[in-house]
């Protein structure tokens, strides 16, 4: 059984990028699509606990493809890659029917002007940030604010919160991870271990 290749959907290719350019491209072009991508995955895939993993696989495929040639238009490529990946996964698992992979066109994910989308993101950013902070555990919020807004060091944060420095590290590391999920996926769960 051969997997569907992603490359055939690339209409026209860009130039080859350096590692740094590639990373910047990924942050600039792909990450902003995460909300839409996650929504698509949730609608198309029954096992919701696998979404995170599927998304990561799709990102890896996109990144690997972009190493060779930068895809254009980006949005169409992302969703084609996503669909292909889901179909391949469905074939493998033989559990989910292929028809459960929703049609891209039916979701209205046409290749809009990406510039416009980014502008909307910028405008929505503050509101989104507020919602995201709302959902974080208080401790995590505290360390983020103390670092981002007050520019405090690890030891200063530890002193103010009355916790040890390793605990500050743990909180901030987890808070950073949680931020990434919450920003792009409104149904993301915070996986919080006990303190």
């Amino acid at each position, binding site marked *: 059984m051969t997997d569907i290749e992603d490359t055939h959907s690339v209409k026209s290719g860009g130039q080859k990028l350096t590692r740094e350019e590639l*990373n910047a491209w*990924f*942050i600039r072009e792909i*990450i902003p699509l*995460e909300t839409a991508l996650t929504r698509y995955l949730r609608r198309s895939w029954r*096992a919701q*606990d*696998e979404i*995170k*993993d599927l*998304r*990561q696989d799709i*990102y*890896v495929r996109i*990144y*690997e493809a972009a190493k060779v040639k930068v895809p254009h238009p980006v949005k169409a490529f992302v969703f084609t890659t996503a669909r292909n990946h889901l179909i391949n996964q469905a074939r493998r*698992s033989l*559990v989910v029917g292929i028809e459960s992979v929703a049609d891209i066109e039916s979701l209205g994910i046409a290749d809009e002007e990406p510039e416009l989308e980014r502008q909307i993101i910028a405008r929505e*950013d*503050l509101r989104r*940030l*507020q919602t995201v*902070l*709302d959902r974080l555990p*208080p401790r995590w*919020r*505290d360390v*983020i*604010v*103390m*670092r*981002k*807004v*007050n*520019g*405090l*060091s*690890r*030891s*200063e944060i530890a*002193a*103010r919160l009355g916790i040890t420095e390793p605990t*500050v*590290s743990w909180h*901030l*590391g*987890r*808070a*950073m*991870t949680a*931020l*990434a*999920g919450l*920003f*792009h996926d409104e149904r993301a769960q915070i*996986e919080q271990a006990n303190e």
Partner: protein
Amino acid sequence: MSNEAERAVSAAQGIEEQAGRWLESQELGPWSSQDQQNLNAWLEESTAHTIAYLRVSAAWQRADRLQALLSTSSARSSSKQVPDTSKNPWKVRLGVAVLVCALGAIAVALYPGPTEYQVFATTVGGRETLKLNDGSKIELNTDTVLRLAKGTEQREVVLEKGEAYFEVHHNASHPFVVHLTGHRVVDLGTKFVIREDGRKIQVSLVEGRARLETTDSGKPDRAVILIPGDVAVASRGSLFISHRERVAVARALSWRQGLLVLSRTSLGDAAREMNRYNHEKIFIEDSQASQLTVTGTLAVSDLGEFARIARKYFGLAVERRGADIFIRQPRGSHAVPSNHS
């Protein structure tokens, strides 16, 4: 099957948490070149690692907007002179967090007292640049008095009066603090200008970030984060923050070139500005003349040019008495007709 799925999910989550740990150490340090090598090796290990790292760092960068969110809400609440009574619980929490930090900062940066200070002063029309041990730079404008903490650290300054431009070499574990009447500015990696004229202080942020805190005894401490373009004007009991274009903020720095940049400035204000730099003073004698607006650039010491503009472009009467210059509407003329009588 379900077992495999579970393991797969925890794998993705696990990688993200690893990425979070890398970013945490990068953010709070210590971060050596060996650490960077280790990170690179981890990133090279698999594309999934790179993706997770990019995702988490993109979100962390995005949280930079938090400053904007916070400074707008504090600015709003401070100009209204009421505590933030927002129903949104985290806003209140943020306020508390900032307050906690502000109080903490007091403990870190003890207000002048036991510390020994070195005094630097400029005369009227003078200008001086101080280079500090840590690479920071302070430029004093005309008629300014500044005290600098003695010792190797030199991270504490008291601006007694006048105006100074600060280019601060940031050190998170040892913040640079400027003490003012009733307020304090703590840099978070910054270039900024502070003007202290006895009645009010004005802080203009050119680059980076700084925290402005009130230190009035008997009043609740308040802290506001300033971002580039922010101009904060604070006096006893009030604090206003406006956001200006960078050009406008750059104008506040023109004195470093010995220039006064006027942009729809009233003649009265322009004269007051000129007077800060010169022993010879300009007096605008009637209110009508002082309300005329002027746009342009002139040398801070060029009183002759100022007088010439008043005479030539505004048709005002200019008279020299001693060293001073007096400007008013020519006698008998009413250059600005009034519609309402």
